[in-house]
């Protein structure tokens, strides 16, 4: 049986997906529902290939990492097969760990341009109608971040202005009240003395 092959390219990155249609799901001849092989090639970098679980984990890590970048949280992501983090030079460090014993992990340094190329290849795969791949557990759920109590600066910014305003109003009114009372007492004394 002939396998189908689809290629997604974006500038320096190329993603190849090879697989078969699932006739039990009444797939067409050109469709891929069972991925048997995949390969990611980036110019000036070694080729990356593996099983379907590897692809799933790499996709999951890339999408999660991209969402962190979008939200301005440059953290480190670690998993059984892939670690990714941003170094001081602004490059994305990838550490791909093999499941086979005695094989050293593969280190890659991707610039912003290469990283976006790879991400756009994955986006093309996601949008492809010819490849049936479950992205539900892979794509992170984007949501608007509400008020975060863990952020001390936000609490300070929220509480300090009304507190300062209340304190200043309290100080001004108490000083004015004191002046008013002493003035009132002086007036009473003057009227008492004049009556005498």
């Amino acid at each position, binding site marked *: 049986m002939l396998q189908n092959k689809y290629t997604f390219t974006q500038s320096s990155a190329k993603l190849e997906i090879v697989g078969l249609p699932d006739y039990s799901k009444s797939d067409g001849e050109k469709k891929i529902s069972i991925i048997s092989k995949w390969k990611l090639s980036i110019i000036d970098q070694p080729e990356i290939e593996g099983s379907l679980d590897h692809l799933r984990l790499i996709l999951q890590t890339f999408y999660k990492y991209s969402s962190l970048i979008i939200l301005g949280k440059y953290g480190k992501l670690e998993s059984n097969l892939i670690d990714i983090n941003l170094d001081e030079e602004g490059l994305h460090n990838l550490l791909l760990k093999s499941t086979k014993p005695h094989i050293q992990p593969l280190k890659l340094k991707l*610039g*912003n341009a290469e990283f976006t190329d790879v991400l756009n290849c994955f986006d093309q795969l996601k949008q492809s109608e010819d490849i049936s791949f479950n992205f539900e557990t892979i794509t992170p759920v984007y949501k608007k971040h509400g008020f975060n109590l863990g952020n001390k600066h936000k609490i300070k910014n929220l509480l300090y202005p009304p507190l300062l305003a209340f304190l200043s109003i309290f100080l001004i009114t108490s000083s004015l009240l004191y002046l008013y009372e002493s003035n009132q007492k002086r007036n009473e004394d003057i009227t008492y003395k004049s009556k005498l």
Partner: protein
Amino acid sequence: MYSLSNKLSYQEIFPNKVSIWKLRCNNPLRKTFVRNNLKHHEYDALLKITSEMAKYLYPYIRSILLSLDNYNSRPELWNDFQSRLIDLIKQRFNTESILVKKLVNFENSKNFYSKILLTLAMCQSEDGYDRLKIYLLNL
């Protein structure tokens, strides 16, 4: 932008170039800032146009990002881009504002511009449109 909006069939939302210009004037940093109520479908259409523009300009965005990645050996393209962007901001934005003064500072604004370019490079697809949306929601 207008031709892209026509391509995306937004003739009803943006019947002419002035309608796009009016929406762009909602930016409080602009010299010509006008407070208008931006409707949801207008906001959505602007995001779609931005995403489509990023797709169209991706080769340029990529080469500028590449120049930033190799800044020590090839800084020319990044420096040209940053200088041009600063010139445009000086022309169109209110330079009396502290925020704009920070934006036009060549040394300090590098990280901010690189973040914008990276976001644009990541928002050139359907998923990228969602990324752009979440980026703006979390500003």
